[in-house]
């Protein structure tokens, strides 16, 4: 057994985090917590990008993470605005009560 931390270790950690995030999406009903789980999954993918970029020996993985961060920031802004708008209309943040697209 050699205890050198290879990129595979980081990818395994990323797989575990992604699984926990997906589990949260399936289990939780609060729209805000589901949103946080999406962020968790995005971060797991970012870690995979970084580890793969290091294994490949170039900077493309880090650039991909940069763009994912920008898209995630835009997504959070719009998503939270939608949650607040829905809360104003319905007084709830539970996705069980939001079963139709009609406003």
């Amino acid at each position: 057994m050699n205890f050198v931390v290879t990129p595979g270790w980081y990818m395994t950690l990323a797989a575990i985090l992604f699984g926990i995030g997906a589990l949260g999406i399936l289990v939780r009903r609060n729209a805000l917590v589901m949103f946080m789980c999406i962020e968790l999954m995005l971060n797991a993918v970012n870690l995979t990008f970084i580890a793969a970029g290091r294994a490949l020996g170039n900077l493309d993985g880090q650039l991909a993470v940069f763009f994912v961060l920008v898209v995630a920031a835009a997504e959070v802004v719009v998503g939270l605005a939608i949650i607040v708008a829905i809360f104003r209309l319905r007084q709830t943040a539970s996705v069980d009560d939001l079963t139709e697209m009609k406003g």
Partner: protein
Amino acid sequence: MVELVVFALMGGASVLGALTVVRARNPVYAAMGLLATLFSMAVLYVLNLAHFVAAVQIIVYAGAVMTLFLFVIMLIGVDKAEDLRESIPHQRRLAMALGLVAVGIGIALVAQGRFSWVPVVSSPADPQATNGTVEAIAAPLFGEWVLAFEATALLLTIAAAGAIALASHRRPSPVLEQETGAS
């Protein structure tokens, strides 16, 4: 050896934070768990020589995004308990099994493949080639990837405009109407 210790500490912290996000009843605790995960992720990025991305992770995620999350949690209110009835029978148990299967498949793929898709694996790779300093990131970002960079600028503008359009949509809320009607 140092990398192993830091990896174990930060990996454990990130998994604990992720479990807190899923388990916590109070959304504020979930946000704090997410914050722990984001910080330990930043440390793991530094371990992988992604210095600039780690700084951006702290500033954008742990700074701006978490502030926005906490702001919305306070706006919506944290006192409402989550409905624990299962609208789909055995939903939690099924979700748990599915999550375990997903994690197992992920770990098995990583362990099985042993990075056969990576042409040249030397771990750690050439530190000069993967050292993510600001200069090293900026050269391809404003050269090869400049079109994508401009597209993200457009995306951020559209997102800001969309958020303003969604947030400024005013209609009289029923609570306010009742209050004015009562008085």
